[in-house]
């Protein structure tokens, strides 16, 4: 296990370095003068020079890159151009809201997906299976930017059950979680179905059935406990995707998370803030994937002996 951990963490180093490099070059590839974009064409040359110096844009690109790597390593992501607040501080304020939303969406997806997938597998090729899989495909096909407004229309505007937008009590979490979690529920239910079908074909299931074990025991104790591992892995990996997917959901529901902050920073061309947000989301994704790999190796010894 120790060797696996060391190997996995070492493999992460070039990836993290690559992510930081790519973020730097994406942001610095902006055509035209970023200072002019930020200040507008009417700004005086003196103002432009001051901002250019402040951002370090007057130095060669290589020097800027090295400075950026050093700053990221120490957690210094600079200051927002518009609020003048520290980027790291702004992100730290918004990050918990996104994590809360992503966790709730994931929980909701798992609660729906696993029973649906088990049921479909247990009744393979029946009307129930066809129906469940058609519903899950429908879930994958409905984009969050459509589900969100529809949910607002029905449950907030017409029925008045939930708030239209913002982050408040538990009720404010319901609609954004459904919006973000629907596609995930669909993906996980399809995966649960296919892993369950494979598990149900194993010899130990035939043995359990021959010994007269009840159907529910066979399904949940024998098959599901073996089929769940890939589902948990994908769920974990999708957690990172949820953090990014939150950009659209947070925009729809005015949810004060890092996704909305990213979009605000990008549209306002607040480039230190945009850089910090993109970097934070992608590094979160990388570290969530690492955590999932480690947990998977802990649970399944075959992985760490590969």
């Amino acid at each position, binding site marked *: 296990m120790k060797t696996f951990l060391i190997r996995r963490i070492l493999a992460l180093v070039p*990836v993290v370095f690559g992510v930081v490099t790519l973020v730097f070059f994406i942001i610095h590839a902006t055509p035209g003068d970023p200072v002019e974009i930020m200040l507008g064409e009417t700004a005086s040359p003196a103002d432009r020079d001051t901002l250019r110096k402040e951002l370090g844009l007057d130095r060669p690109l290589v020097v800027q890159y090295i400075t950026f790597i050093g700053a990221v390593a120490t957690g210094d992501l600079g200051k927002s151009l518009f609020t003048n607040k520290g980027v790291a501080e702004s992100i730290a304020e918004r990050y918990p809201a996104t994590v809360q939303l992503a966790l709730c969406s994931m929980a909701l997806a798992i609660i729906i997906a696993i029973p649906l997938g088990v049921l479909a597998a247990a009744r393979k090729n029946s009307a129930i299976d066809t129906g469940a899989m058609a519903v899950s*495909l429908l879930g*994958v096909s409905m*984009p969050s930017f459509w589900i969100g407004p529809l949910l607002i*229309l029905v449950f907030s505007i017409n029925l008045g059950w939930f708030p239209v937008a913002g982050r408040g009590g538990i009720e404010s979490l319901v609609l954004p979680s459904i919006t973000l979690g629907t596609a995930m529920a669909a993906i996980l239910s399809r995966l649960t179905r296919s892993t369950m079908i494979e598990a*149900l074909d194993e010899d130990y299931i035939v043995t359990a059935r021959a010994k007269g074990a009840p159907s529910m025991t066979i399904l949940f104790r024998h098959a599901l406990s073996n089929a769940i591992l890939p589902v948990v892995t994908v769920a974990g990996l999708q957690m990172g*995707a949820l953090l990014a997917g939150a950009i*659209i959901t947070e925009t729809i529901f005015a949810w004060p998370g890092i996704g909305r902050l990213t979009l605000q920073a990008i*549209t306002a061309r607040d480039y230190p803030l945009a850089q910090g947000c993109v970097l934070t989301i992608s590094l979160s994704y990388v570290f969530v994937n690492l955590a999932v790999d480690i947990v998977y190796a802990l649970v399944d010894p075959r992985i760490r002996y590969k």
Partner: protein
Amino acid sequence: MRYSSFSFFIGVTLTTGFVLVALLAPFIAPYSPYEQDFYNGLAGPGALHLLGQDSLGRDILSRIIYGARVSLLVGFVTVFISATVGVALGAVAGYFGGRIDEVIMRISDIFLSFPGILLAIAVMAVRGPGLENVIVALSIMGWTGYARLARGQALSLREREFVLAAEALGAGPLRIIFLHLLPNIAAPLIVEVTFGVASAIVGEAGLSFLGLGAQPPTASWGSMLSEGRSFLLIAPHLTTFPGIAIMLVVMGINFLGDSLRTALDPKSKKVIRAV
């Protein structure tokens, strides 16, 4: 009806239907997608305008019909670019192995470290809004999946007898990759490409929804949805119909991909007992 035949039927019907709608848009759209009628802005569905009118009085049905062109064009072009680049790099990595493989796969790892739409948003922020840039952004995001698929297949095929025989007969690497390896990965590639078109369509609509994709007055389903959001309370049809269009086309392509996967994967034909 079995799920596979059901999904194939729905998939082919919806996908063909939308492709025809996109191709025949000028002939079947009742109005020009840009024709404004300010006096009837936000009018609901009726006899003259079946799906109603938007805030500028433009016919929503006509805009949805023309919007199919944008969605499918972005979907197909993006997949063409990302699959070509991805498969070429993946096949080269898998066939040659060693350092080439290591470099290509590490680059792919870095791109994979960016969750889906984030990379596209970042690229759009740099390049500015517009459909060409949407295609570039989505292609940059999408090539890694094809590269991994092609690499995996090339790795498993390169030691097979037919490849060794071709090498023994003096075939060069390019000939082996194009004539011997690529035809053998066609089946999983077709499935991947099908799902790729669906995700590119959603990607375009998402970027347009965020205001980073197609720009006014282009009829794009994503930007129509975004505009409709401002009138949700008084004119919900502005949001409902473009959303249904996105859902139907994506569902059609997903059903098609699903049935192709079942048809092309020999393992999925195995008879499995239900409990």
